[in-house]
């Protein structure tokens, strides 16, 4: 493994990345807080998974917080997202209450979906979240379709779909990119490229010199950014969202990033190279953004520590709530199959 032309090593984006300077509307402490919240939430879930408290498979996004937050905090309320199997961070950034999200992941009654759907199938439509998804690529057409609906209504919302590098090889992505392009749909395609699909290195299964080119071939404005840098991700998203809102159609953003914990909670990650892991860990999106905030004098170390402490308490409370929550009542088994 190691550095590859397809995937920038050590978290650095390509030269085409937009400048990651701060924009006027940026709520930098909000970005930081949401990233820290995701990280602590995920690490709690990892412990619960290890303790056998989470039914099924749990895929954690620690390491990918900057892509989750940089994209979603650049959106407006009412905009849609479609997420994937590694989607807790997207749910949180889109506003899901963490106690109800934790309850859902544990399969408990107060969960966002009544505790019946779990980590991979959190549908949270009231917040514009078309769902995490157990099918690789499954959310892509949902977002494109929501964009079609928004355009038909003329109400100005846009939609974003997230997918991993693994989904680059699903024909579905190409079909949707083509349609989004010919119909100029207000949709943003976001590839969270963390270098692996399960235990297989992206390079081994993905042809061509550039991921970004997979959008360009359809005439879609495409860009590659440092997915460990929340501002870079946010800037690219703002530009894409703006294009979408004024009717200029879809965009494609490739975020190079890294999943700390491997494929699913418990993955031993023998297939990764230690050097590479170290390089990515040095680019940790929380640590690097904290340093930026301190360097720019937007916050002191103490203020950041206070944010973290507050987050830790919230996560702890959410986990306690979820663990104490009741199981779904057995009468609900067959509810909501049909209307």
């Amino acid at each position, binding site marked *: 493994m190691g550095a590859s032309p397809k995937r920038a090593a050590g978290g650095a984006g390509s030269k085409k990345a937009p400048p990651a300077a701060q924009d006027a509307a940026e709520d930098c402490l909000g970005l930081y807080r949401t990233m820290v919240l995701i990280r602590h939430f995920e690490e709690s879930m990892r412990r619960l998974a290890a303790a056998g408290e989470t039914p099924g498979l749990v895929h954690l996004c620690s390491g990918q917080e900057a892509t989750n937050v940089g994209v979603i905090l650049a959106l407006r309320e009412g905009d*849609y997202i*479609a997420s994937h199997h590694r989607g807790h961070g997207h749910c949180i950034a889109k506003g899901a209450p963490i106690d109800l999200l934790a309850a859902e992941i544990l399969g408990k009654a107060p969960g*966002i*979906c*009544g505790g*019946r*759907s779990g980590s991979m*199938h959190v*549908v*949270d*439509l*009231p917040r514009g979240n*078309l*769902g995490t*998804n*157990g*099918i690789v690529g*499954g959310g*892509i*057409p*949902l*977002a*494109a*379709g*929501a*964009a*079609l*609906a*928004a*355009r*038909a*209504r003329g109400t100005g919302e846009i*939609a974003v779909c997230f997918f991993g590098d693994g989904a680059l090889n699903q*024909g*579905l992505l*190409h*079909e*949707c990119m*083509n*349609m989004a392009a*010919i*119909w100029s749909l207000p949709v943003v395609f976001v590839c969270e490229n963390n270098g692996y699909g399960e235990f297989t290195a992206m390079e081994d299964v993905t042809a061509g010199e550039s991921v970004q080119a997979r959008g360009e071939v359809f005439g879609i404005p495409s860009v590659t950014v440092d997915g460990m840098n929340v501002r870079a991700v946010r800037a690219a998203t703002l530009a894409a969202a703006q294009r979408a809102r004024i009717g200029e159609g879809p965009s494609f953003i490739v975020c190079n990033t890294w999943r700390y914990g491997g494929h699913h909670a418990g993955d031993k990650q023998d297939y990764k190279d230690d050097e590479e892991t170290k390089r990515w860990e040095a680019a940790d999106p929380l640590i690097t953004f904290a340093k930026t905030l301190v360097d720019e004098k937007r916050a002191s170390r103490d203020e950041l520590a206070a944010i973290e402490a507050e987050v830790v308490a919230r996560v702890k409370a959410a986990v306690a709530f979820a663990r104490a929550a009741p199981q779904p009542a057995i009468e609900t088994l067959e*509810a*909501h*199959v*049909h*209307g």
Partner: protein
Amino acid sequence: MAETITFRDGVLEALFEEMRADPSVILMGEDVGAAGGVFQQTKGLFEAFGARRVIDTPISESGAFGMAIGAAMAGMRPVFEVMFGDFMTLCMDQLVNQAAKVRYMSNGAATVPLVLRTTMGVGAGLGPQHSQGFHAWAAHVPGLKIVVPADAADAKVLMKAAIRDDDPVLFFEDRQLYAARAMARDADETLPLGRGRILRPGRDVTLVAIGRMVGVARAAAEALAREGIEAEIVDPRCLVPLDEALLLESVRRTHRALVMDAAPLRYGVTAEIAAMIGEKAFDWLDAPVARLGAVDTPAPISRSLEPLVCPTPEKVAAAVRAMM
């Protein structure tokens, strides 16, 4: 006197009326726009409602259908057309893993009000890859509703009901029926999904028929009547929800049942209906519940073979005679 309409026009009128009444109804499919549909089944819609509501898709069944689901989740009521039922195979992931499950997964907070409309039917020499109907597959998937209309009047009313329904509905149209005529129904007549009908009363045997099989059953019933056998024809109209009560009530009167379908017999829809009747009307049955379906082969194109594929009035009549 009311005028008659064709099956094709019945569905088309439903589309016109629902699109006029509700701006969230849109149509998506291949060549459904300016071309008016390869079977002329969408003629005039493009002119009436424009390219934003009558959307010609690329040949991307999987992605385009997935987009229809997303649009439905975001407030549209898409009617998605799959030109030949055989190509539904390309939409199964979106259909099963997304459309059918969204309501359940969201605990009722999200719905997918869409219609997947497709054609089917052996008999026009179209061969193995252009003759299939997968209503049996769809009926097996919790969360989907399945409609198989048998005539023009029903086609219209049921399409309207399907569009207004908040769940994903599959609407299977037998191309062999497209030109068949029936009396038109009133524009505002509605019918809930899941209600069957008795098309011909009879005391001796219940013929359960959907779609094109209804005509086959009628012809068989007429032949049988000349021999003194009175067949009752029941058309459940929907496979899900299935009007079990109507079927059972009929069989408990006639004491005999023959279930028929135009798709391959094995593991097809006749099995569920026959098994259900066999279980719930056991004590009333004077003969085993019989089934007729297409032969378990791909559909050949040749003119000597193709007519042998599906149940015919002769085969139905013979099967009934064997039960008496």
